[in-house]
C-alpha cells in the first residue's frame, strides 16, 4: 500500500467518520490562532500607524531636531542651521499639534504648521517621495490636493466639485487662516474647498478656510487622513505659540551626516535632541511595550488551552485506534510509520485550524483594534486608529505558531503510540492502565515543574518583559495538569467510598463517576483543559478586581479637590489640549474657591526611557494635597518639607527604574540637565510611564510651557460645588472652553477608563474558556464513544434512554465541577503571580489583593452550566445507543 493510500485510509477516512471530533479540534485551534492574530494585528497597526505618520510627515528627512525639555523649541534655532544650507543640507521647521475638529464625530486631527516657503530642494524631495507624476504640477506632493491637474483628469467624471477647482499648492497656504485638510477628514465633516473648518484647540474654538482637500497620499495620508495643514504662522497663532516650533526636519547628505550632527550639538544652545525621525517611533514603542507584551501574552492563553484540546484529540485518536495500530505493527509497520501517520493527522488539524484562525483573525482584527484603541489613546499616544493593517508576515507567523503548537501538543500522544508493543497496543484499556501506573511519576514531575516555577518568580524582567513571571505562571498550569490524574484519583476514590455522596449522585451519577475514573487519562486532560481556561479567568478576575478596588481606594483618598477643570479639546480626546494660564487666575477669584492647583505635564526621556514630568502648586498641596506615600508618611507633610530641588516620584517610576528615596535623578530642562533629589515615592495608577513631580515654580524656571493640563479647585467649607461650577463657567464664557467635573464625576470617569482598559481582557479569557469547553465536549464525545458497550449493557439491564443521557450529562457536570475547583485553586496561585510578579515587573504597581467571591461563584456555576451544554450532543449520542446492534457485534 502506498504511503498516500495508507494516509487516506488511516487518517482521512477517520477524520471524516469522526467529523465531530475533527470539527471541534479545528475550531479550537482556529479560535486560539484567531485571537492571537487579531491582537497581534491590532498591536502592530497601532504602532505601525504612528510610525507611518512619522514617516509621511518627515518624508525623506534623515535627521530631526526636537525639544528635549518641554514640548516646543524656539524657531530661533533656524539661525543656527543657516550655514548648513550652503553645505547642501535642506531643512524645514514644523509645528505639529493635535486639536479636535468640530462636527461629525468630533475627530481628533493633527495640525501641521509648515513653512510654505521651504527650500525647493527640500520640497522636491517630498514630491518624489509621494508621487512623481504630480511633481511638475505641485510644488509639494506631500500636499497633493485632489484638484491638482494630474488628479483633475481622473476625477472629472466622478467629482465635479473637485475637478473644477483651481490648482492648490502649499504656497497657497501663505494666506493667514487657510488650511488644506485630509480627504478622510473632509468626508467625515462633509467639507469641501471653500468651506470653513472649526477646530477645538486647547480651550478655544478657531476657524480656518479650507482651500483644498489633500489626497490620501503623502502628508494627506498621515494621521489616518485626519490631518490639517496650515502655514507655520497660522499654526503658531492657532496654538498661541508665537515663535515656537515642535521640530526641524533635515535632509542631510550622507557624506557630511556626522559633521552636521556634531555641528548641531555644538552650536544649538536650546534644549534639543538631534536624532532620526524613527527615534520618535522607538520611544512610542518603549512606552507601549509593557501594555502590548502583556496583551499578547493574554492572547496566547487561548492557544495554550488549544494545546490541551489537541493533546486530548490526539490521545483519543490513538487510544481509540490502538487495535489498528497493533495490527499495523504486527503487519510490519515500524514506529516511524505509525508516528508519521499520526503526525500527518496532527498536521491536518494544525493547518486546517490555523488557516481558519488566520481568516477569522483578519476579520476580527478591526474589533480588536477598536478594543485597544481607547486604552492606547488614553495612556500612550494620540493617533486615530481606523482599521487594521494586514501584514502578510504576521499572518504567516500566526499560522506557523498554530501549526507548531499543534505539533508540540501532539508529540506526547504520538510518542505513546509508538512506544507500545504490538500485543499491548491491541489490548483494550492498556493506555489508561499506563496512566494509572504512571500517576506517581506524573505527580513527581508536577512537583518538579512547580519547583522550577517557584524559582522563576525570582527572575528579573528581560527587556521590560516579565518573561520569568510568565514562565512561573506556565509552570503552575503545567504542574497542576500533571497533578490532575493523582488528584482526581484521590477525589473519585473518596466520593466512591462515601455513601451519602453516592446516594446523592444516584445511579447515573455513580456510573458517570466510575466511567470517568476508569479513563483517568482522558478525564485528566479534559479537567486540565478546563482548569487552564478557568484558572486564567479566575486569576484575571482576582487581578482586575484587586486592581480596581485598589484604584477605587486610591481615587477616593487622592482626588480630594471639589472641581476639576480641563480644556474642551482634552475632554474630547486630545491629550495635548491645555488650558490658558489666565483661566486659573479667573477661577481663583470665583467666590467660594479656597485654592487652585494648576497641574501641567509633559513627556520627557530620563536615561533613555520615557517618563512624565508633572508640576503642581506645592503651596496648595501643602494644605490640601492628599498624596499617598508608599512609606506611609503623610503627603502634605512631605511636600511642606521639600526643597526647591526635591521631587516626588510615582511608585511605577521607582519600581521600574530602581530609583528610591534619597537618589538623584536628572531631567532635561531648557537649561540643561536638572538634578533632582527624590524626597518621596507616591502611589499612582494614572500612567504606567511614571511621574516625576516638581513644584510649579521650579517648572516655570526650567520649561517654557506656561499653559496648564488641568486645574484642581478646592472650595471653601460650605461652598456649593454646583453653584461654583456654574459661576466658573459663566466667568470663563467667551474666553476659555473648558469642561468642569465635580469630584464624583471625575471618579466615575477614572473608573470608566479603568473598565474600558480591561474590557479586552474579559473578551480574551471568555474565548479561552470557549476553547476549554470544546475540550470538554471532545472528551465527552470520546468517552461516550468508548462507553457504547457499557451503555448497551445498561440498556439490557433496564436503563432508559433518558438515564443514559443523564449519565453523560452527569459526566459533563463532574468534569465542569472538577475543572472549576482546580481552576479556582490554580487561578488563585496565578493571580498572586500576576499581581506580585508580572504586574510588578511590567508596570510597577502595588495592588492590594481582593478576592471577588461573587464573581468566582457565579462564573463557576456558569462554567458548569456551559459544560452541561457541551454534554448535550454526546448525551444525545449516548441516548441513541442501539443495545442490540452493539451486543450482536460480539
Amino acid at each position: 500500500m502506498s504511503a498516500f493510500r495508507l494516509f487516506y485510509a488511516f487518517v482521512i477516512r477517520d477524520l471524516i467518520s469522526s467529523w465531530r471530533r475533527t470539527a471541534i479540534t479545528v475550531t479550537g485551534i482556529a479560535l486560539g490562532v484567531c485571537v492571537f492574530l487579531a491582537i497581534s494585528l491590532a498591536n502592530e497597526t497601532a504602532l505601525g500607524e504612528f510610525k507611518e505618520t512619522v514617516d509621511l510627515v518627515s518624508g525623506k528627512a534623515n535627521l530631526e531636531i526636537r525639544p528635549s525639555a518641554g514640548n516646543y523649541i524656539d524657531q530661533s534655532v533656524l539661525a543656527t542651521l543657516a550655514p548648513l544650507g550652503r553645505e547642501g543640507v535642506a531643512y524645514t521647521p514644523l509645528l505639529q499639534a493635535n486639536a479636535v475638529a468640530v462636527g461629525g464625530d468630533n475627530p481628533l486631527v493633527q495640525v501641521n504648521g509648515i513653512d510654505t516657503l521651504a527650500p525647493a530642494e527640500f520640497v522636491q524631495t517630498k514630491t518624489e517621495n509621494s508621487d512623481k507624476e504630480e511633481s511638475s504640477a505641485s510644488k509639494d506632493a506631500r500636499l497633493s490636493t485632489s484638484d491638482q491637474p494630474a488628479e483633475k483628469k481622473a476625477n472629472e467624471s466622478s467629482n465635479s466639485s473637485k475637478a473644477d477647482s483651481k490648482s492648490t499648492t502649499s504656497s497657497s497656504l501663505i494666506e493667514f487662516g487657510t488650511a488644506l485638510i485630509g480627504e478622510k477628514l473632509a468626508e467625515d465633516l462633509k467639507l469641501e474647498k471653500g468651506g470653513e473648518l472649526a477646530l477645538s484647540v486647547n480651550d478655544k474654538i478657531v476657524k480656518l478656510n479650507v482651500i483644498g482637500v489633500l489626497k490620501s497620499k503623502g502628508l494627506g495620508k498621515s494621521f489616518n487622513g485626519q490631518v490639517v495643514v496650515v502655514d507655520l504662522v497660522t499654526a503658531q497663532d492657532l496654538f498661541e505659540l508665537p515663535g515656537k516650533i515642535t521640530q526641524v526636519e533635515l535632509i542631510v547628505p550622507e557624506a557630511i551626516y556626522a559633521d552636521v550632527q556634531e555641528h548641531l550639538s555644538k552650536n544649538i544652545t536650546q534644549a534639543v535632541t538631534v536624532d532620526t525621525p524613527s527615534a520618535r517611533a522607538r520611544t512610542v514603542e518603549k512606552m507601549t511595550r509593557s501594555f502590548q507584551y502583556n496583551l499578547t501574552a493574554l492572547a496566547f492563553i487561548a492557544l495554550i488551552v488549544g494545546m490541551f484540546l489537541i493533546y486530548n484529540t490526539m490521545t483519543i485518536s490513538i487510544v481509540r485506534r490502538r487495535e489498528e495500530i497493533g495490527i499495523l505493527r504486527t503487519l510490519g509497520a515500524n514506529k516511524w510509520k505509525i508516528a508519521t501517520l499520526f503526525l500527518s493527522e496532527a498536521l491536518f488539524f494544525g493547518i486546517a485550524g490555523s488557516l481558519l484562525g488566520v481568516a477569522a483573525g483578519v476579520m476580527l482584527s478591526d474589533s480588536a483594534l477598536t478594543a485597544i484603541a481607547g486604552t492606547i489613546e488614553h495612556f500612550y499616544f494620540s493617533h486615530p486608529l481606523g482599521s487594521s493593517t494586514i501584514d502578510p508576515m504576521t499572518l504567516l507567523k500566526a499560522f506557523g505558531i498554530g501549526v507548531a503548537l499543534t505539533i508540540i501538543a501532539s508529540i506526547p500522544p504520538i510518542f505513546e503510540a509508538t512506544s507500545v508493543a504490538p500485543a499491548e497496543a491491541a489490548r483494550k484499556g492498556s493506555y489508561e492502565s499506563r496512566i494509572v501506573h504512571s500517576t506517581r511519576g506524573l505527580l513527581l514531575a508536577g512537583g518538579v515543574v512547580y519547583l522550577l516555577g517557584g524559582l522563576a518568580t525570582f527572575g528579573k524582567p528581560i527587556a521590560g518583559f516579565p518573561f520569568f513571571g510568565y514562565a512561573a505562571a506556565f509552570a503552575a498550569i503545567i504542574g497542576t495538569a500533571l497533578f490532575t490524574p493523582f488528584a482526581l484519583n484521590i477525589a473519585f476514590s473518596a466520593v466512591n467510598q462515601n455513601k451519602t455522596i453516592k446516594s446523592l449522585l444516584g445511579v447515573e451519577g455513580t456510573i458517570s463517576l466510575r466511567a470517568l475514573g476508569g479513563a483517568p487519562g482522558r478525564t485528566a486532560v479534559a479537567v486540565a483543559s478546563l482548569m487552564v481556561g478557568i484558572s486564567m479567568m479566575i486569576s484575571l478576575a482576582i487581578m482586575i478586581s484587586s486592581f480596581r478596588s485598589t484604584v477605587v481606594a486610591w481615587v477616593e483618598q487622592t482626588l480630594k479637590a471639589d472641581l476639576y477643570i480641563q480644556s474642551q479639546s482634552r475632554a474630547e480626546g486630545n491629550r495635548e489640549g491645555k488650558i490658558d494660564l489666565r483661566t486659573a487666575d479667573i477661577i481663583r477669584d470665583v467666590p467660594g474657591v479656597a485654592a487652585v492647583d494648576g497641574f501641567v505635564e509633559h513627556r520627557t526621556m530620563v536615561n533613555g526611557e520615557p517618563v512624565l514630568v508633572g508640576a503642581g502648586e506645592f503651596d496648595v498641596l501643602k494644605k490640601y494635597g492628599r498624596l499617598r506615600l508608599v512609606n506611609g508618611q503623610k503627603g502634605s507633610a512631605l511636600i511642606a518639607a521639600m526643597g526647591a530641588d526635591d521631587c516626588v516620584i510615582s511608585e511605577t517610576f521607582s519600581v521600574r527604574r530602581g530609583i528610591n528615596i534619597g537618589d538623584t535623578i536628572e531631567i532635561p530642562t531648557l537649561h540643561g540637565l536638572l538634578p533632582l533629589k527624590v524626597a518621596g515615592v507616591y502611589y499612582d495608577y494614572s500612567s504606567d510611564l511614571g511621574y516625576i513631580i516638581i513644584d510649579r515654580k521650579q517648572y516655570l524656571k526650567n520649561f517654557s510651557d506656561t499653559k496648564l493640563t488641568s486645574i484642581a479647585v478646592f472650595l471653601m467649607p460650605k461652598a456649593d460645588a454646583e453653584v461654583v461650577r456654574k459661576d466658573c463657567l459663566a466667568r470663563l464664557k467667551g474666553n476659555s472652553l473648558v469642561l468642569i467635573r465635580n469630584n464624583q464625576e471625575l471618579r466615575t470617569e477614572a473608573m470608566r477608563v479603568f473598565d474600558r482598559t480591561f474590557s479586552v481582557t474579559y473578551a480574551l479569557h471568555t474565548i479561552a474558556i470557549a476553547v476549554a469547553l470544546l475540550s470538554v465536549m471532545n472528551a465527552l464525545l470520546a468517552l461516550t464513544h468508548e462507553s457504547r458497550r457499557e451503555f448497551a449493557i445498561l440498556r439490557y439491564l433496564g436503563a432508559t434512554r433518558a438515564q443514559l443521557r443523564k449519565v453523560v450529562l452527569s459526566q459533563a457536570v463532574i468534569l465542569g465541577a472538577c475543572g472549576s475547583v482546580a481552576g479556582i485553586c490554580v487561578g488563585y496561585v496565578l493571580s498572586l503571580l500576576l499581581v506580585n510578579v508580572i504586574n510588578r515587573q511590567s508596570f510597577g504597581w502595588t495592588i492590594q489583593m481582593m478576592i471577588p467571591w461573587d464573581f468566582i461563584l457565579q462564573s463557576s456555576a456558569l462554567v458548569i452550566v456551559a459544560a452541561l451544554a457541551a454534554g448535550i450532543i454526546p448525551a444525545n449520542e449516548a441516548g441513541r445507543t442501539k443495545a442490540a446492534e452493539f451486543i450482536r457485534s460480539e
Partner: protein
Amino acid sequence: MPESDILISLDKVSKCYKAHNIDAVRDVSIDIRAGEFVAIMGPSGCGKSTLLNLIGAIDRPDSGTIVFDGQTVNQLDDEALTRIRGEKIGFVFQSFNLLPTFSVMENIMVPIELNKSKIQSAEKRAKELLQKVGLESRAHFFPSQLSGGEMQRVAIARALIHEPRLLVADEPTGNLDTQNGENILQLIKEFNHDFKLAIIMATHSKEASQTADRLLQMRDGILVSSESN
C-alpha cells in the same frame, strides 16, 4: 397447553436489517410457558441472537405479534419496553458484560438502582444470590479480579436481582471451559427450578441444549424444529 401458563408468545414474527439486507428472523411463532427452559440452537448468523433480542424486549419486530405476560409488546414505545426489561427480564451474555468499574455487589445492584426499586430488600437478596452462586466472599471484588466462571456467576446473579420472570441467556457458556460451563448450566437449571423462572438460552453446545426442557432449531432466520427433551 393452558393459555394462562404462557409467559411469552410470538406469532409470525419477522425482523429484517434493512441496512445489511438481512432477514434475520422470518415468520417465527413460538410459545414459552412460565418456568419453561427453552434452548435455541443453530449455526452462526441463523438469527438466534435477534430472536433473543425480540423476546427480551430489546428490539421490535417488523411484523408479527409478541405477547409478554399477557401484554402485546411489539407496538410499545421504548420507555415501556425498558420498563418490561427492568421488571420482568434478566439477561446473561457470552462475554459476561459486567461493568468493569463496578464491584461485584455494585454490578448486581445496578438493575435495582436503575429502576429505583426497593434497594434495602434488594441488598438482602443480592447477598442471598451471591451466596447461591458461591461468591459471597467476592462481593467487593472488581470484574478484573475474577475468573471467567466467576464473572458469569456474577452476571447470573445480576440478571436475577430484580426477580424477573424470564431469563434470556445468549451463549452463557461460550467463553468458558467445560467444567465452568457445566457449573453455570447447573446454576441456571437450579434457578429455573427454584424460582419457576422461564429461560430461553441460545447455544452452540449440544450438551448445554440438553439441559433445557425444549430445544428449538433455527436456520436462516426460520424456526425449523421444536423438540422436547
